[in-house]
């Protein structure tokens, strides 16, 4: 019961990663640049208020998808979910760039039952059975969210950035494993495979616990879906953006909520 509740909270955060909610979903890699094939990395997966601290709920490992440079799937090892975070290890056997992702495709709904406001989250297929017969003011949304991070052995490659044409996706102009303090990086965001203009992006450096301000960087994509971030200092950065539209693929959902989160490592000069 309790596990279910925690999971539901995590999924809610994953679904809403982009909206104005304080909770932040993230995958934090131990490091992102490797010189040795066969290197190990470890990743923390959690939802929290602060970056990157374990103070809310873990992300569910069931959603984890790790893609190797050649496009094959990599099985995570030593996965474990604790009270505040999930953790897993990866062995990087190939040269090139890996994508580590947690995708959420689901539905959420609000409704009233006997004058009381209720909420529900789950898979699209479970929607019909989940809403009680007497429910009124049912408002259902489709949600499509991605939480990603990247790691590279040797020379960065771009195979894992092949897009699916669904939801918000990131296309590198600057490679996300080639980021250095004081330099600017450019990325492109797509919605359903097309450049997403006017998307608002928030970039927050990690270690928020040890400073008083969020120090967020706010940028907006141009007509070509591109945006630029100049990294003020080295460290881990959390990036998120979100969008809403009516292009839902689910008959019961009136709107669609899209979100995208990525964690980047920026190295010192």
């Amino acid at each position, binding site marked *: 019961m309790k596990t279910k509740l925690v999971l539901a909270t995590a999924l809610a955060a994953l679904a809403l990663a982009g909206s104005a909610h304080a909770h932040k979903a993230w995958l934090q890699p131990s490091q992102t*640049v*490797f*010189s*040795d094939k066969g290197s190990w990395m470890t990743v923390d997966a959690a939802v929290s208020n602060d970056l990157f601290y374990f103070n809310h709920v873990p992300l569910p490992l069931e959603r984890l998808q790790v893609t190797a440079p050649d496009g094959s799937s990599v099985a995570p090892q030593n996965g474990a979910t604790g009270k505040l975070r999930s953790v897993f290890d990866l062995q990087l056997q190939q040269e090139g760039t890996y994508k580590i992702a947690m995708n959420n495709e689901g539905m959420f709904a609000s409704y009233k039952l006997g004058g009381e406001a209720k909420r529900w989250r789950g898979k699209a297929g479970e929607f019909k059975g989940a809403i009680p017969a007497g429910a009124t003011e049912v408002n259902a949304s489709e949600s499509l969210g991605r939480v990603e991070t990247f790691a590279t052995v*040797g*020379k960065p490659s771009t195979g894992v950035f092949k897009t699916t044409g669904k939801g918000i996706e990131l296309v590198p102009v600057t490679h996300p494993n080639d980021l*250095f303090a004081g330099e600017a990086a450019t990325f492109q965001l797509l919605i359903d495979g097309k450049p997403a203009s006017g998307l608002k992006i928030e970039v927050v450096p990690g270690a928020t616990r040890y400073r008083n301000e969020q120090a967020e960087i706010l940028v907006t994509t141009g007509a070509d879906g591109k945006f630029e971030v100049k990294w003020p200092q080295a460290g881990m950065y959390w990036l998120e953006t979100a969008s809403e539209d009516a292009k839902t693929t689910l008959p019961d959902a009136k709107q669609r909520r899209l979100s995208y989160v990525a964690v980047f490592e920026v190295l010192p*000069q």
Partner: protein
Amino acid sequence: MKPSMFKILIPALTLPLPAFAADLELNIEVPRINAAEYHRPYVAAWIEKADNSVASNLLVWYDVDMKNGEGTKWLKDMRQWWRRSGRTLSMPVDGVSGATRPVGQHAVAFKGGSKQLAGLAPGSYTLVVEAAREVGGREMLSIPFEWPAKAQKLSAQGKTELGKVGLVVKP
């Protein structure tokens, strides 16, 4: 001054020397560091063009002899070298790779016709020396120089992971 540094000079002698050939001497000081756990630093030296692209890799000192090439694991800690060229190289590179060096002054000479310098067009360059030490720090020094226009004796002083780095250009 390991034999490996000389090996490359032998074929170099058989090449016709370009008219602008000059020799280059490098002196790299590995400083004494009082650390509970001391490892010899990894050191890379290379020549950059104005746009930061690598014109020539001069040397890379790392744990070349570790079994299964495990020494390559920490090459990425020389971050700028790794980014500028290391990640596209297949280590070890003949005539460039060498073993880590102990504390002290290390003189390395490159002849004008050597593999490292033969392709260098006349112009302005920067010598970059980067050191990274396991459980220690990282430091990078840059020395701009002209090639091969005139005799130059230049140096830079490191603060942490590098001591004095000297560069002599002999036209």
